[in-house]
């Protein structure tokens, strides 16, 4: 079997009188296998899927698989969703609540002879390990089981493309991994392009071979999870990727032999060392640092390899379950995540003097 790719060039504008106006403007090529679409909420991810599925009509563009167009604004082609053979699993799953698992899965096989459809349903239910639930209603089964049923319902129709809109939110990592494994097993045999939308870093790390990062309706980067997540080029994407600290800074000098550059944080007499980036002295840049990557000490640390040690005082401590969010004023204000145990053993309190330790490679250089 050949390996057909999905190609989508989509432009869509929303007038939007309430929400800020979103325009979707991108061009992607999705080969068989899982491709993750990653970005903050409101980036246009779901709209992109709606356009591909035919639930929303783009203003212009072309959407095709293997060269065959579902939508082509120039040639006035716009197939309705019923004729596209694209499967779409929504975030809410949208299982029909009044039908059994079996009836849900058989729903897309209306044009298949009953005997054959029964066999197909039995086969896919077994593949996704839900064959014992066939007589139950969606509300009588667990969240993970519902997700498996939704996948089975979509895939039993042998779609040409699978669209997944955050289908595994709310499941624990182990359950997620086992469902993904079954999905991969199915796709090893069928080789269709799968677009998997998420805003969760963990899912990107766990799943991805290929990642497309989106923001404001545009692609901001593409590549492996490492490449995309660790080099955020846009502020909002950096926040979505878990960079709680985004600090404006000015480049002081480049030390190319060491692979580093020194920057001065804006409005602060405070210099730090960050990995070398495409910048020149005097450039205004941003530095992104995850709150969990910052170490906290209650006396001046010595003998460390870390190059950046900043002195400051705690201005707030806020407990969030198993995590305490500390805000530390070192002229620039940093957000730091520590454990409740660390708060006790370091006797952290508001106004207490502390030292922050930042590894050079935990400081990410962000353009613009």
């Amino acid at each position, binding site marked *: 079997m050949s390996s057909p790719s999905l190609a989508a060039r989509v432009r869509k504008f929303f007038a939007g009188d309430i929400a800020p106006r979103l325009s979707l403007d991108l061009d992607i090529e999705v080969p068989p296998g899982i491709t993750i679409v990653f970005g903050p909420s409101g980036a246009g991810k779901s709209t992109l899927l709606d356009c591909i599925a*035919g639930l929303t009509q783009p203003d212009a563009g072309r959407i095709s698989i293997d060269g065959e167009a579902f939508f082509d604004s120039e040639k006035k082609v716009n197939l309705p969703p019923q004729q596209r*053979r694209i499967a779409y699993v929504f975030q809410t799953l949208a299982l029909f609540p009044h039908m059994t698992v079996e009836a849900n899965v058989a729903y897309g096989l209306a044009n298949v002879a009953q005997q054959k459809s029964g066999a197909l349903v039995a086969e896919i239910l077994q593949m996704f390990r839900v064959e014992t639930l066939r007589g139950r209603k969606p509300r009588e089964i667990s969240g993970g089981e519902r997700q498996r049923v939704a996948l089975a319902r979509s895939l039993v129709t042998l779609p040409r493309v699978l669209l997944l809109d955050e289908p595994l939110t709310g499941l624990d990592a182990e359950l997620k991994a086992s469902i993904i494994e079954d999905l991969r097993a199915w796709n090893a045999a069928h080789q269709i392009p799968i677009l998997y939308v998420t805003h969760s870093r963990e899912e990107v790390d766990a799943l991805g071979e290929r990642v497309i990062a989106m923001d404001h309706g545009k692609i901001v980067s593409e590549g492996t999870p490492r490449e995309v997540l660790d080099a955020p080029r846009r502020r909002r994407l950096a926040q979505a990727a878990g960079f709680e600290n985004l600090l404006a800074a000015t480049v002081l000098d480049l030390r190319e032999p060491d692979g580093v550059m020194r920057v001065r944080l804006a409005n602060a007499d405070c210099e730090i060392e960050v990995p070398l980036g495409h910048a020149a002295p005097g450039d205004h840049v941003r530095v992104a640092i995850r709150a969990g990557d910052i170490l906290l000490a209650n006396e001046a640390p010595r003998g460390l390899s870390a190059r950046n040690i900043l002195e400051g005082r705690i201005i707030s401590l806020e407990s969030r379950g198993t995590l305490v969010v500390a805000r530390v004023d070192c002229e620039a204000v940093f957000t730091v995540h520590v454990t409740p145990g660390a708060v006790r053993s370091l006797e952290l309190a508001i106004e207490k003097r502390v030292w922050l330790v930042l590894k050079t490679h935990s400081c990410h250089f962000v353009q613009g």
Partner: protein
Amino acid sequence: MNIEALLLSLRLALCVAAILFVLGMPLAYWLAFSRWRWKFLLEAVVALPLVLPPTVLGFYMLLAMGPRGPLGKCWQAAFGHGLAFTFAGLVIASVLYSLPFAVQPLIASFETVDRKLVDASAVLGAGSLRTFLRVILPLSVPGVITALVLSFAHTLGEFGVVLMVGGNLAGVTRTVSIDIYDRAQSLDFAAAGRTAFLLLVISFAVLSAVYGMNRRAARRAWLPWAAK
């Protein structure tokens, strides 16, 4: 007690509820899902009988059904007799009069069906008729029942429109409410009271039976073609 009038009223209410079930469904579907910009005008027309005095509606219906009215002329051409002061005329007038009571509960329940289910059905290849029959309608059963009951009960109790359009012909257009009015006017309070009480009992029994069913239906859809 006038059994003839009571049976006539029941027959009228059943006919009207049945006709509204057939007509109201597509109309409500269209009103719930259409994005036509002038839709609100039709919504207003459908709601008109709620605010118009029955005599006003009855008056216009009488004009339309009269020998020179458009409805009356068509009916005359098709069946060889007029429409005013007949049972058929009564049915047509009552259908209009009870229209909002059928259509509005249907719209309300169609609109509460999760749009994602409708989208999911389309993506799975179902056209709009199949989506309606297998997804929207089964999930709207309480609304459908409410629509049926309200159009039945509202027709059973109507008075002004019947009087304007049907007059008071025993066995043809003398419904139970008109019979009660007649008796009370002629000071036969005992007969009026018996009929009125019977109407009260029947109305209460029908409404409570259906609302009871509705409560169960809200928990599980039970239309035969949906349960499969």
